[in-house]
């Protein structure tokens, strides 16, 4: 349709244009079904796969958190559904009319503001808080069996990378070549959508991803990536979709091993598991976002013992204990090595930050800890 017209003179790779056409087709099919219901005087409905623990399973074989086949039928003429139904259609209309047809991308917040208004003749807003439109977006993604990037929606970008690699990136029709070894102290900011990024010259043996910005800065200053021939990345806390997708591509397209570095506490470990297996909230995207070959380098409770960091540990809080107990029950933490780690944590009730290594000396992490761990392949699965 409209998207097809724009193809002429569009320099986007053929693949991306095909994706857009496919997404458009899916939206048209959904709209046609709704129109038919209207004409027949039937209740309008959209089938939405159920997200959340009741419909999420861990596939042992593929090592992925997967979405089950349960779905909820959302109706317009149902008091409990009507508002969310309307919001889902607002998303559909925005994606089709504003984004796909104009070949633009937008943030979740853009969509929120674009579609938020007072319903004429009432005192009610179409959307009160962004959380509502965010949920409607995920509903729409899973209903179409697609993902956010295909809807031209992006999350806030987060994460930085540096190392011996050249990539090309694209802003609409403009193609830029970026040398990741020349990005200064901050590194290259990973975009929220990385589908268009192409990997060129590369001279790295593995990827080291740190949860914390501070660790990236420390290792960048120590020229760790140059000395160790690796790509250095930070996710800045819980990994954004762009960062997770980039890791997945580095792993599957370049076959690079990925080592992960987080604090020695349940929250750090969960960040790792999200990058590796996917998350419950985005179980429908585990395929695209999960780097199942990723390994956990540290820190573990065993590291605290091994590197004699006992004196710089922090007492675990009740929330940490509770989280650990929950995680102990997750199928993707069932590996014996992880169960042992979690048990140790529950037993000792201590946690440690990566920065605790600085108690030895500032460069201990880059000169001793990391090389030792990598050399001895002392990882957790």
């Amino acid at each position, binding site marked *: 349709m409209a998207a097809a017209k724009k193809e002429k003179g569009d320099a986007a790779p053929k693949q991306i244009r095909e994706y857009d056409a496919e997404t458009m087709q899916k*939206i*048209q099919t*959904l*709209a*046609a079904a709704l*129109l038919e219901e*209207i*004409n027949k*005087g*039937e*209740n*309008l409905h959209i089938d*939405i796969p*159920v*997200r*959340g*623990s*009741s*419909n999420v399973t861990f596939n042992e074989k593929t090592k992925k958190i997967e979405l089950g086949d349960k779905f*909820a039928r*959302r*109706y*317009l*003429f*149902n*008091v*409990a*559904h*009507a*508002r969310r*139904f*309307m919001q889902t*259609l*607002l998303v*559909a*209309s925005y994606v*089709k*009319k504003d984004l796909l047809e104009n070949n633009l991308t937008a943030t*979740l917040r853009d969509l929120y503001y674009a579609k938020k208004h007072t*319903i*004429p*003749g*009432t005192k*009610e807003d*179409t959307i009160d808080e962004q959380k509502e439109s*965010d*949920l409607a977006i995920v*509903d729409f993604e899973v209903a179409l069996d697609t993902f956010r990037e295909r809807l031209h929606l992006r*999350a806030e970008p*987060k994460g930085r990378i540096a190392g011996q690699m050249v990539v090309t990136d694209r802003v609409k029709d403009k193609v830029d070549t970026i040398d990741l070894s020349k990005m200064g102290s901050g590194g290259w900011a990973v975009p929220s959508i990385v589908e268009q990024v192409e990997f060129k010259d590369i001279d790295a043996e593995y990827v080291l991803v740190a949860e914390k910005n501070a660790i990236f800065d420390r290792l960048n200053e120590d020229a760790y990536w140059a000395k160790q021939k690796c790509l250095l990345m930070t996710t800045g*806390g*819980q*990994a*954004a*979709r762009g960062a997770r997708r980039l890791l997945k591509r580095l792993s599957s397209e370049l076959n690079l091993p990925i080592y992960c570095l987080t604090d020695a506490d349940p929250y750090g470990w*969960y960040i790792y598991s*999200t990058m590796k297996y996917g*998350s*419950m*909230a985005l179980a429908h995207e585990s395929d695209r976002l999960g780097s199942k070959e990723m390994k956990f380098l540290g820190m573990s409770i065993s590291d605290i013992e091994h590197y004699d960091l006992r004196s710089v540990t922090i007492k675990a809080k009740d929330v940490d204990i509770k989280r650990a107990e929950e995680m102990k029950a997750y199928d993707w933490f069932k590996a014996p090595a992880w169960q042992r780690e979690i048990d140790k944590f529950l037993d000792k009730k201590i946690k440690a930050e990566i920065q605790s290594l600085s108690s030895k000396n500032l460069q201990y992490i880059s000169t001793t800890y990391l090389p030792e761990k990598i050399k001895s392949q002392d990882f957790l699965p």
Partner: protein
Amino acid sequence: MAEKDAKAVAPAASQPAGDGQTHDYKEYSVAEFFKKNRQMLGYSGKVRSLTTIVHEYVTNSLDAAEEGGILPDINVEIDNLPDGHVKVVVEDNGIGIPKQFIGNALGKLLSGTKFHHRKQKRGQQGIGAAYATLFSQITTGKPTKAKTSLGDYKIYDCELTIDVKTNEPVIKNMREYSGKFRGLRIEAEFSEVTYNRSEYGVYEYLRRTAIANPHVQITLIEPNKEIVVFPRASKEIPAKTKETLPHPLGISTSDLMDIAQLSKARKISSMLTADFTRISSEKVKEIDAVCGEPKIDFDRAPKNLTWIEAERIVKSFSQIKWIAPETDSLIMIGEQQIEMSLKNILQPEQMKVVCRKPKVFRGGIPFAVEAAIAYGGKSGSWVSTDDNGNPVETKGELLRFANRVPMLFDAGTCATTLAAKDVDWSRYNLKGWENLPVSIFINFVSVYVPYSGAGKLSISGEEEIIEEIRAALMECGRDIAKYLNALDRAKEQEHRRSIFFRYIGEVAECINDLTGTDKALLITKLKKTAEEKTKILLAQGEEEAEGLEEVGAVEEDEGNGKAEE
């Protein structure tokens, strides 16, 4: 109300611990006794006293109309006089009082004929109105003015007082003149009384009287000159109550003492067989046997019967098996009449009337219960009204009647109240009915109303009676529940429709964005579907079937929402 008979109460109250000192019995003038003990007749409290006065006059009016087979028109006027007195005028269109009986009817406490009129009674032309004469006299010193005519163009006009010492009427200024009038007009002044519209006041009393007597038209002129008309709802005059002899199960010791005083029989034994129904000479022997030692001499004259003996005889009545009284002496208001009346006075949105079949209590006394629940309209008592007189805030009310006579006081111990408390109203969607626009009507019908307390404004809480009232209320409740449920459904559907309509515009716009279909056309179609989905479904099955669509709400996301910013 308070149609206590003087002879019965006076000795009972004056008797120290009931030790049989019957010689006290006649030393009081009845008038003198009640002058001192007016609360026994309902003259306690300023509001209640006025209600009692109006009650006495109005019941007399109703009886006088009934006697003549006349549709009663009763006018009541209350006026606050400048000197603080309250003037009460009651005028009816009844049969009137023959000249020679005016004194006895209005100026002598206890005319002495009541036990020859043992019927389902509402009041006697006896102590009630006469006591009002006395009350007027002792609180204001003024005579009561009476005007009456039998409809023979001869009108009598006089002023009455009572000689307290002798309990004899004193008539002054008797005038006879011709004119067109039939009925009785009484005008009297009182002090120590107050008019208001509270649930214990005259207004409420008359309203309830009108509800229980749909054949009556009552006009009330209030002290502020406001005229309130409770219009006649039915032209059907109730059947005349049949006179029957008392049944042994239905009388009290004081009743027996009164009968003994008035009996024409020469022996106690013949009084029992002659003045009661169902007592044969065989039964007298049985009574004698049950009473045991010391033997009561049944051959003595009835007027020599002692209080103690009367007590023992009455006690023996309850231990003997009796043939039940005839049930055809029960005069019900009737389902249709109650319906007309409630419609007339309360204009309810919904009502249900139930007239139960006669049952018996105390092992043989027949009674019947008529009950109704009215919802909405002018049902319930109005706590406040707007400028147009429409209810703004209403409360539920329990309208209690014994043989059509409203009972305004002593509700707490009444069988009707107890029965209403015993109903699980939540089953009928009437939980908290006390705060809803609801009138619950209960009429207890029996020749022998088992009053509890001296005021005769409360029915004794006997199990059979409570159970029967409860059953009647539940029967009414079931019907009202259906209506209320339908109302709830309608409200809910209305609510659902408003939600659906709210989003239709947005949804139509989105579908227009997606498909290019005309938005106005989409809105029309969506609205039509929404209307259909929120129709008030009468068939329960349909409703439930649609309800299924409401299940399967979408589960909320859980886990780390932290990933998305």
